[in-house]
Structures are given as structure tokens and as C-alpha cells.
């Protein structure tokens, strides 16, 4: 449980010496309690104070790293229940399930190459398959071993989905230097897999039929020498799973049991898309997804992007001249702000009109059009400067620029700032009205 300011104050020397930069020990204690200062700033703090504060300030959920090298992924280290309280920090790892049974060597290579090379850029993030969950093939342990080695050789983090302790050992041993995650079958006997994970110094998934059992299993694994643990929550349906996920996060943040302070591991079966959606929104840290195509990956990647965006920062798009469709020198030139919500809205609506456009995204410091204008970030001068910087004039033969209806007041100033020959056209207030605007106004002026 985090300490309160008063509890911390009692641990400080109470000399008000100001060496920490604060007038009183109490003021410093309050900052410590809020997590805005470090105890190191107090040169006279006792060992007792350091120990007490150190324990209280250790992260409520430990970080766990799977894999090695550039694609290694660290999950956990979350500090809040609601993203708006601060932010969620570690995007959950989305692993693809690989059942190598019946695959030829060439097919295996092709699939792993494709997974390694899959990249989708979206709103400043690169979506990738974060790792491969290799299932043990019962009766043919060498198949799983080959697949695990092949995945690890490609630099992909590996989760070993074990069916037997022998199979698990065979797979994990071969790639132990790549820090694979060991996931035993559900409700495997305590100890068996923990000893293996401890010996190989790799992370381990623990599971149980209920939450007290799960917390106890995590403590037992730690005692067996496993340093990095993931919790597989019980839950036969979404409702039970949601209860587990919620209780684990709440219990970890409230520090009610040392066995709950670990990231969460979730297996998603075929036809369980909703489980993946819930898991991403609600605290799962590493998910194994079944043989999914892009129609499943893309929405899940996008949901993760949304949920793990830092709510404290306004989402910005890189300012610049964007092409919607394949615009030519006669296509309309539109201006908007670089607040991503605004940009997405305008881009989507423009796309829906079917008319290719040049979209000039002005540096408005991530504010929406109207807010930016009130803050002086969407003035005629500023818009003109941006248009010059992005060399908009070279991209269109007409000299007409369309501005959002909400800032019609800047049209005169913008016309002056752009100079001879330019004309400012006031567009609709809402991007959703662009279609009739193009139809009635743009086509009528014949600028294109």
C-alpha cells in the first residue's frame, strides 16, 4: 500500500533543513507521497526510511520481458485502474499461435517469415506481430522444438505452449537464451514447471481454478526461484474472466497479496474475438491469438493503440501536405488542424466523398480548429506560413484554399498573408458536409 504524506513525514528527520529544496519536511513528504520527488534528495534520511519507502514505491505490477534483442517485449509495470488516472504504459503483447503439426519445413519458414515481416503503419505506430506462441505437438516433440527454434532464430519472442513437462523442457531448453515464456497446460501440477522455469531462468505462466489459488501459485513459483511470472486468470466465460481480470488489477494496485502483482496472460481461442477485445481493454498483458487474418489483427491492434494512448498528451498528426486519394494539380486544397481526431474525421469524410484532395495539416499544436484559433494557433498568418513551408503552391495550379467554416473570420487575413492571386473559400463547419460542399460550391467555381 502506498504511504500517505503523514506516514512518510514521520520517517523523515523533521529538521526542516531545506537541503531537499522544500521549506519543510512535511512539504517534501507530500511531494514524495504524490510520487513527484525522490527520497535521494534528502541526504539525512535514515536507513529505516529508505527501506520503508523503497518497499512502498516498488511498482505494484512487475515488468516481465519475453525474448531478446530488438523485438523483445516488456509487459506489466502498470500503475492505474483507469487509463484517465494517468496512462497505461506497456502495450500488451499480441502473439500468434503456431501449431506446426503437419507443416512442411518450407511452409513453416514461409509462415514465420510472413509474421516477422508483417508491418502496418497507423497513426504513428507500427503494428507488428509481437511474438509466436508455439504449441507443443503431443507425440511429436521434435515438431514443436523445430518451430520454436525457427521462430527464435528470426528474432521473434517465443511463448512455449506446453502439453507435457518433457515437451516443454525440450522446447524451452533449446531457446533458453532467447528468454522464451513458458506456458504450462491449465492446472498443471505445482512445482513441475516452476522448477524448469527457475532452472532455465525464463518467465513462467501460472494458473489455478480460482483467484486465491492463482495468487498462491504465483507465490509458490517465486519461492521455487522463478523471477518473472505471468498470471493466467480463471474464467469459463467473459463474465467470470472479467471478474478475474478486474480483481487481479485491483488487488495488485491495492497490494492486497504479493501473488497478484504480475502481468496477465490470456489465451484466445478460435471464435473468441470478443474475449480478445475485453482482454485488451481490461488489463491483459500478453495475449495468444489463434490463426487470425488481418480482419482480426487490425481491429485488435487498433484497439490496443487507442486504449494505450497517453490521455495526458493531445494526439497529434505530423503537420504537412497529405494526399487523400490521388489528387492532381486541379484537386481541392483543404486546410485543417493537426489534432488527430480532427485530422481523422476530415480525412475520412474527404475519402467518403470520392473526390481526391490535398489536405494541408497545419501545426496547431494538437488543438482542434476552434480551440487553436482562440489560442492564436490557427491565425491567417500562421496558416499561410504553414502552407508556404509545405510548398502547397507547387502542388496545385489553382490558387484556392478551403478553410474550415468555424474559422471563416481568418479568410481576409489569410488572403493577405498568402499574397497576390490567392483566394480563400470558406468550407462547411463540419467535415460531414464536405460532400454537398464539393457538389454545390467547389464544382460551381470551376477552380479545378
Amino acid at each position, binding site marked *: 500500500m502506498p504511504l500517505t504524506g503523514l506516514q512518510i513525514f514521520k520517517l523523515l528527520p523533521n529538521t526542516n533543513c531545506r537541503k531537499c529544496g522544500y521549506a519543510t519536511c512535511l512539504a517534501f513528504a507530500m511531494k514524495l507521497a504524490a510520487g513527484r520527488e525522490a527520497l535521494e534528495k534528502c541526504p539525512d534520511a535514515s536507513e529505516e526510511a529508505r527501506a520503508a519507502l523503497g518497499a512502498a514505491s516498488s511498482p505494484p505490477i512487475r515488468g516481465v520481458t519475453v525474448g531478446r534483442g530488438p523485438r523483445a517485449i516488456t509487459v506489466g509495470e502498470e500503475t492505474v485502474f*483507469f*487509463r*484517465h488516472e494517468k496512462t497505461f504504459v506497456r502495450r500488451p503483447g499480441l502473439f500468434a499461435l503456431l501449431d506446426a503439426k503437419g507443416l512442411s519445413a518450407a511452409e513453416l519458414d514461409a509462415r514465420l517469415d510472413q509474421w516477422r515481416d*508483417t508491418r*502496418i503503419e*497507423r*497513426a504513428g505506430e507500427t503494428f507488428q506481430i509481437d511474438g509466436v506462441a508455439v504449441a507443443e505437438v503431443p507425440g511429436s516433440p521434435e515438431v514443436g522444438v523445430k518451430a520454436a527454434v525457427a521462430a527464435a532464430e528470426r528474432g521473434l519472442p517465443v511463448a512455449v505452449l506446453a502439453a507435457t513437462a518433457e515437451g516443454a523442457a525440450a522446447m524451452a531448453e533449446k531457446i533458453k537464451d532467447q528468454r522464451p515464456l513458458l506456458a504450462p497446460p491449465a492446472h498443471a501440477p505445482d512445482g513441475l514447471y516452476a522448477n524448469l522455469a527457475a532452472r532455465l531462468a525464463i518467465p513462467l505462466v501460472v494458473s489455478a481454478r480460482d*483467484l*486465491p489459488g492463482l*495468487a*498462491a501459485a504465483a*507465490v509458490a513459483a517465486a519461492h521455487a526461484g522463478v523471477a518473472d511470472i505471468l498470471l493466467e486468470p480463471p474464467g469459463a*466465460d*467473459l*463474465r467470470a474472466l*472479467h*471478474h478475474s481480470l*478486474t*480483481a487481479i488489477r*485491483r*488487488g495488485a494496485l491495492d497490494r*492486497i*497479496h*504479493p*501473488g*497478484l502483482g504480475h502481468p496477465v496472460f490470456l489465451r484466445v481461442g478460435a471464435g473468441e*474475438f*470478443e474475449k480478445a*477485445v*475485453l482482454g485488451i*481493454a*481490461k488489463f491483459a498483458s500478453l495475449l495468444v491469438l489463434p490463426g487470425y*487474418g*488481418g*480482419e*482480426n*489483427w*487490425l*481491429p*485488435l491492434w*487498433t*484497439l490496443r*493503440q*487507442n*486504449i494505450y*494512448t497517453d*490521455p495526458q498528451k493531445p494526439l497529434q498528426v505530423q503537420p504537412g501536405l497529405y494526399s487523400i486519394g490521388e489528387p492532381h494539380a486541379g484537386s481541392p486544397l483543404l486546410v485543417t488542424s493537426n489534432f488527430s*481526431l480532427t485530422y*481523422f*474525421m476530415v480525412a*475520412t469524410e474527404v*475519402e*467518403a466523398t470520392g473526390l481526391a484532395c490535398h489536405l494541408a495539416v497545419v501545426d496547431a499544436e494538437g488543438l482542434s480548429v476552434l480551440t487553436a484559433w482562440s489560442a492564436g494557433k490557427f491565425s491567417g498568418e500562421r496558416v499561410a506560413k504553414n502552407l508556404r513551408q509545405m510548398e502547397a503552391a507547387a502542388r496545385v495550379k489553382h490558387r484556392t484554399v478551403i478553410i474550415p467554416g468555424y474559422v471563416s473570420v481568418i479568410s481576409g487575413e489569410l488572403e493577405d498573408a498568402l499574397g497576390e492571386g490567392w483566394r480563400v473559400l470558406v468550407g462547411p463547419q463540419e467535415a*460531414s*458536409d464536405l*460532400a*454537398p460542399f464539393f457538389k454545390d460550391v467547389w464544382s460551381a467555381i470551376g477552380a479545378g
Partner: protein
Amino acid sequence: MALELKPKKWPGTIRTVTLGGGRRRTLAVGGGNALPLHAFEGSFPHRPLLALEITDTAPGRWPAAATEPWQGVLGQPAAAARRAVEGYGADLVMLHLAGTHPDRGNRSPDDAVADVRAVLDAVPVPLIVRGPGAGRKQNDVLARVAEACGGEGLVLHSACQEDYRTLAAVAVAYGHVLVAESPIDMNIAKQLNILLADASVDLNRVLIDPLTGGLGYGLEYTYSVMQRIRLAALGGDPMLNAPVVCLAGEEAWKAKEAAVPRDKEPLWGDERTRGINWEVATALPLVEAGAEIVVLRHPEALARLRRQLDGWFAETNRGVA
């Protein structure tokens, strides 16, 4: 070490709002006294409702996957409503009077009344009526509908902070439920409910629409603002404890990711499944953040959400059956 999980209790309860009435079937929403879906520590007398959206005129911009379930009834509200309720199992229907927009057909308030009446005659469930959007036409259309359909307990979508008086007045006069829409802003949501209360609207006849950002297009803003609204409501704020309605289908199917065909973006996979997934991945987080009514477009998205919610609210369902 024993594991002790204490249930979290809250001072506040979400208001219960009853839709429909008179000769129409009634449905109640709200009434929960814990965080959304926290069935393990609170009571939820009503499960979230799933609505399907139908339109007065053939929709211009729905992707093929979204129009396919409506083949043969596009732009025929009565037939579409029957299909939504009898064929697809929607709890209720939202009729979007998009064709009354001055730029999208400019149909008259009388046309709108005729469409609403046709739907009311076709199906016995409560009806959400969505106007053409903010502006004078919104009031003209919805006020006429409200007047002509008194006693049906319609849900009028929607009034906003800048323009709420007309719709507040007709909602009170003719016994309808009013949706108060705010632009992803908790303070405005609260302010608008205060204004509505001052205008003599019974807040047990009000729903909040926090404005939905679709998946990839601001979903996280709506998600967090809804969580904050719900925390305030459960904390006891009587101006924020209205049930919430989200237009998830409309926002999901607007996304280019829900529409672009596979041959243009091979990595994105099959566009039909992708579109339905887009709708599910928009709607489910919203339910989890507190939506009591979710308006959808695709019956498969509805069926998939229904499967999950039926399990979740099994006791509730038994209670009302």
C-alpha cells in the same frame, strides 16, 4: 496469506429510464449500482440494450458489408424495422431521419412523421428517432414527430447545449425521452443536464449521448469520458447519473478500415468480417465503459454482443422473463 477481495460499494445509482409505453412495449435501462459489468459486486436490474439502425432513405455511405443484411428494405423504414426486430432480434430500433437533412434530400417534417408512424405500426418495440443533426431542421423535424406521436415514449435524439429548449419542451409535453448529446466532454454533459432540469425536464426521462468516437477514430476519448461520467454518477452526482446511449455502428462503419476491400489492402484481410469486427471492437469497450444502449448497424455484430451479454446478465434476464 489469505486473499481478501472486498466488493466496492458506491453511494450513487444510475437512474432507471423507461422507454416506450402506452400501447407500446416498454423497456427499462439503467438502475445499476456498480461499475459497468461489475456484476460480482453490484446489482444490475436491466441488461444493456442492443438497437439496430434503420434509415428513412437509402443510406448513401454505408459500406457494402453494412447494407447487405438490409437488401430489399433499404429506405423502407417499416419493412427494415420488422426485419431488425423479427429477423435479427434487436431489442429496439433507431430510425435515422437522415433524408430530412437540407443537403441530403430535404424531406419534410410531414414525411418524417409518416415514416415514424409506419415504423411504430410495424413493430411493438420502443423507437429511437434520430433527426438530421444540429440546426433548425433538427428541431422542426423532431418537434413535429414528438407532437404527432405523443404517448409512444419515443427516444428523441438529440438535444445539445446550444439548442435544447424546443426539444426539452416537446419531450415534456408529449411524454418522450430526450437524449442529451455532448461533445466528448463531461462538463458539458453535466451542464446540459442541469439546463434540462431547469427547463422542467424530468431527469428520469433523459439519456446521455457522450458522442462516440469509433475504433481508431477517438474511441479512447469516448471510453475515458464515459468512465469518468460513470465514476461521478456512482459517486452520487445526480446530474450525471443518466443511462448512456452510444451510436457505435454509425461511427464504426465510417472508418475506412471497415470499408476498404481486401484487394486494395491485402494485409487487412476480408473486409466483411473486418467491418463486423470493427463494429464489435467499438461497441464492446463502450458497453464496458457504461453504455446502456448501443445502436448497431450489422445484425451479426448484434448477435455476437448479444451472446456475451446474455451470459453476463443471465439472472437479470430470468428476472424479467
